[in-house]
């Protein structure tokens, strides 16, 4: 493209006037961007034309800017203000939303922690209640035992250790009126697993053993005082070690303790 020829064709003046068709103008705009020389020529033409028309102005229209300014600030600020306001509102809204979620998260976490804590406290309370109930039971039992021991109808029968366990010792508190025997097995050794102590009421002449019961749950019972029914005319008591469930007749080789009832005064 011959730039000089293009410039001297006069198309650029028509371009600045706006006298070209739209396609022609677009073409010139495109050429301008590629050729700084042509662009410079357009600037100069525009400058000259601006000077010419400026010379036709009766005065510099300074007041008009103030009028335009008041109109655009009036017309713009009214639509603009709610626009910026809504922006703020939406920013604040989003921020609040975010805060709410963060807050909810912490609340939920706290809530879960509190729930866990509450559950563990409930378990503790249940345990304590159980302990209280146990203690009350124990106290009740102890009171009963105390009542038993204080009863004037009771006879105390000490049972001494025999061959398999010379150190063993037991006591039978026998209430003959109520036909109850209370066995204090505190000093009996723990029975081996699968074995149980069986208490026998004995008639001595001839030797007749009658089972009055088992010291069941020996390990679990802290007091180691067992209440058994005994309606026999017992002359002695013995405790043997028997297989679980007890035996029909005592295994005398496993007779741990034995004691005779003192003759009635």
């Amino acid at each position, binding site marked *: 493209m011959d730039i000089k020829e293009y410039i*001297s*064709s*006069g*198309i650029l*003046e*028509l*371009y*600045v*006037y*706006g*006298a*070209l*068709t*739209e396609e022609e*103008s*677009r073409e*010139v*705009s*495109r050429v301008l961007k590629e050729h700084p020389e042509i662009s410079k020529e*357009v*600037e*100069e*033409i*525009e400058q*000259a*034309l*601006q*000077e*010419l*028309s*400026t*010379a*036709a*102005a*009766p*005065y*510099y*229209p300074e*007041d*008009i*800017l103030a*009028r*335009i*300014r008041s*109109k*655009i*600030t009036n017309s*713009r600020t009214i639509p603009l203000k709610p626009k910026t306001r809504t922006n703020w509102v939406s920013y604040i809204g989003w921020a609040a939303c975010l805060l709410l979620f963060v807050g909810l998260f912490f609340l939920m976490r706290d809530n879960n922690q509190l729930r866990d804590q509450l559950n563990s406290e409930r378990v503790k309370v249940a345990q304590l209640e159980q302990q209280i109930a146990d203690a009350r039971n124990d106290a009740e039992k102890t009171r009963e035992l105390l009542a038993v021991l204080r009863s004037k109808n009771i006879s105390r029968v000490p049972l001494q250790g025999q061959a398999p366990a010379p150190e063993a010792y037991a006591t039978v508190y026998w209430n003959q009126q109520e036909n109850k025997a209370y066995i204090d097995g505190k000093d009996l050794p723990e029975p081996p697993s699968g074995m149980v102590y069986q208490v026998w009421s004995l008639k001595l002449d001839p030797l007749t053993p009658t089972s009055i019961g088992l010291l069941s749950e020996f390990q679990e019972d802290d007091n180691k005082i067992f209440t058994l029914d005994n309606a026999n005319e017992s002359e002695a008591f013995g405790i043997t070690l028997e297989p679980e469930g007890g035996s029909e007749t005592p295994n005398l080789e496993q007779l741990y303790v034995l004691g005779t009832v003192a003759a009635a005064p």
Partner: protein
Amino acid sequence: MQQDGLILELQNGNQRAFERLYELYSESIFGIIYSIVQDEKIAEEILQDVFLKVWDNAGSYNSDKGRFFTWILNIARNASIDELRSKRHKNKQKNLKADNFVNVLENSTHFSNRTDAIGIKKYIAVLKPVCKKLIDLLFFKGFTQKETAEELKMPLGTVKTRNRACINKLRELLAE
């Protein structure tokens, strides 16, 4: 220089950019309007409307289509010609004092410090009649090349080259 940065700022709604562009273009646009309507009050009103349109429609200016000056020029010429055609103007039965921009320039008592008054006066003095007509139609009245060719019974190409010569003379005198 066309202030591309300012124009972009204007299109982003920057009022300061708008005011700067007003300073750059308002007086030459006012000259165009005034030379068409030849009434200061009406020209002021039109100028105000033109720049309000520039502010409101800045987004529709596209540099691929032409110069920013040309864009405002079109708005101003259309607004001025609408005024001439309006009922209000006809009711005033206004007789235009001047035939064209040359008479306006000759009658002018004001010369902006933005123009080379001496250069302009010299130019008016030596301006050929064909240049007066060409510049009046093409620049001040916004005729297209084709319309001008028809009006002046001149081939299209001649409009272009003759006008080029007329403007070259202006540039020459302003550069002196």
